């Protein structure tokens, strides 16, 4: 090739491309390269061409990569569509499963809590609690109760939901009555002992007779079972207490021993009227030698009662729905009140058995009388006999 032909050989587009693409022979390449050493213009042309080639090849690779990626993706889709999807551990949305499990655990916890807390006030009926169903109508002579030994009582476990509808009288469950002892949860042991000693011995027929209250006043001391004790689905024994006196209880003075005195100090409720007061005092005297039985007091809002119970309390003015429950050590009285009593009143409250079928709860401002269901009475008697 002549010098003229080699000069600015980069003007030949095809030659330039072939040079850059190494499509020339080695000898040709060497010759043309030597020109570049002395020709800036050609060198620049070659540099430009090299950049274009590099850029276009880069674009080509990118394009091919893109096409390859699309093909691979399409292939995966076809493979996934063709083969039944197997659930693998990796495909399980574990985060979603964990979220659902957490929600389920919370729901179960709430349900368990509600169920436990909702029934927290119920005492479980022990194997020694039974159900007695002995309707007693107001004004009628007390029916002879079915004799209930402890063994017989045990046989009727689990029957706590049976309801005797006769004359509105319902008894549900019987509470084992431990040694009587008027106490509230805040009582101190020393006071408990005093109170224990102040309660008289087991009721006898004579004692019953000595309870000189006429039928008309009987309800003031005794709970008429036919009206007041009734069933509930709860475990325990529902008794409707009658408010005997709403006056202060410090006025009475029953001088039958230290315990009685102590009762005065603690605010034994006075009889609402003088005649009743005397009868009450008589009762106290009769009971002063009795062996005390453990009691404990609790109070709950009326709103926590089942609706039917609330209605009963609303209907019967001067009544207090009370749940009597028996545990190994104590008999618990849970009062359901419209407005709570101060703790001091509960602390100073007194509970005693009157006769063999009644119970009197003495609070500073009132006395509440309960007619104990026969089963409780029998338990009390048995317990007392053991003492």
């Amino acid at each position: 090739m002549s010098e003229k032909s080699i000069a600015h050989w980069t003007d030949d587009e095809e030659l330039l491309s072939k040079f850059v693409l190494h499509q020339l022979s080695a000898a040709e390449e060497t010759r043309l390269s030597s020109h570049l050493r002395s020709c800036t213009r050609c060198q620049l042309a070659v540099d430009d061409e090299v950049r274009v080639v590099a850029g276009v090849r880069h674009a080509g690779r990118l394009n091919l990569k893109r096409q390859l990626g699309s093909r691979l993706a399409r292939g995966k889709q076809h493979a996934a569509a063709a083969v039944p999807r197997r659930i693998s551990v990796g495909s399980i949305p574990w985060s979603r499963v964990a979220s659902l499990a957490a929600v389920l655990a919370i729901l179960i916890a709430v349900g368990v809590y509600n169920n436990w807390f909702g029934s927290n006030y119920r005492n479980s009926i022990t194997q020694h609690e039974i159900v007695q169903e002995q309707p007693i109508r107001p004004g009628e002579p007390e029916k002879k109760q079915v004799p209930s030994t402890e063994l017989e009582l045990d046989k009727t476990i689990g029957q706590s939901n049976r309801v005797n509808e006769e004359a509105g009288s319902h008894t549900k469950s019987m509470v084992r009555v431990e040694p009587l002892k008027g106490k509230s949860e805040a009582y101190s042991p020393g006071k408990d002992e005093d109170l224990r000693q102040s309660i008289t011995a087991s009721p006898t027929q004579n004692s019953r007779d000595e309870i000189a209250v006429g039928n008309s006043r009987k309800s003031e001391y005794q709970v008429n079972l036919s009206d007041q004790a009734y069933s509930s689905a709860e475990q325990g024994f529902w008794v409707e207490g009658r408010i005997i006196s709403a006056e202060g209880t410090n006025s009475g003075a029953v001088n039958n021993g230290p315990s009685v005195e102590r009762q005065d100090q603690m605010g034994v409720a006075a009889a609402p009227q003088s005649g009743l007061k005397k009868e009450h005092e008589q009762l106290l005297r009769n009971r002063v030698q009795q062996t005390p039985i453990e009691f404990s007091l609790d109070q709950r809002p009326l709103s926590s009662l089942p609706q039917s119970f609330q209605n009963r309390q609303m209907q019967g003015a001067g009544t207090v729905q009370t749940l009597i429950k028996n545990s190994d050590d104590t008999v618990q009285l849970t009062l359901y009140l419209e407005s709570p009593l101060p703790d001091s009143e509960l602390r100073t409250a007194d509970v005693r058995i009157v006769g063999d079928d009644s119970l009197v709860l003495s609070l500073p401002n009132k006395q509440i009388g309960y007619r104990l269901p026969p089963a409780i009475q029998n338990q009390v008697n048995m317990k007392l006999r053991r003492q």
Partner: protein
Amino acid sequence: MNLFFLNEDVRIIDQIRKGDEEALVTLYRTNERQISAFVASNSGTRDDAEDLLQEALVILWEKVRTGCYEHTAKISTFVFGTVKNLWLRRLARSRREIAMNMELDPMPSNDRSALEEMIESEESIQIADALDTLGDPCRKLLLLFYWEEVSMDEIARRLGFANADTAKSKKYQCKKALQKLLKGLQ
């Protein structure tokens, strides 16, 4: 040498020469596991492995299409070796970039190859973008000519030009347009 694999390789190379991209898909599936394991064991991710394998296959494609591939070993060996070089180069580049970014002064070393690589890479990206801007038929023509190194007669046939000279003329026009675009970007 395993004749089965040799025959398979020959078939694949033949496919590549004919421009059948399915050959690349086959090679990808064949080498995917091995490459993934290698890259993962060398601080790489699954995405890195996929990208590197695709790049290696593209290089293979380019070499075979331009007649620069010498079938002296199994294709999988070539692919693995290419991936390895690409990955090591990438790691080295990232280390240099990290070193450069941390330097407040201009890079102390006289390592210009990395810088030149970056510049060249930047230019290539610009040209690739400009090529996309050009659109068809210039884009296809330039790709066929510069990347696949297809003859002008073949280009004329594929793109519907009258003859090779027409294709050459068109190619010159497209190149000028590309250069004009690049100057505008600079």
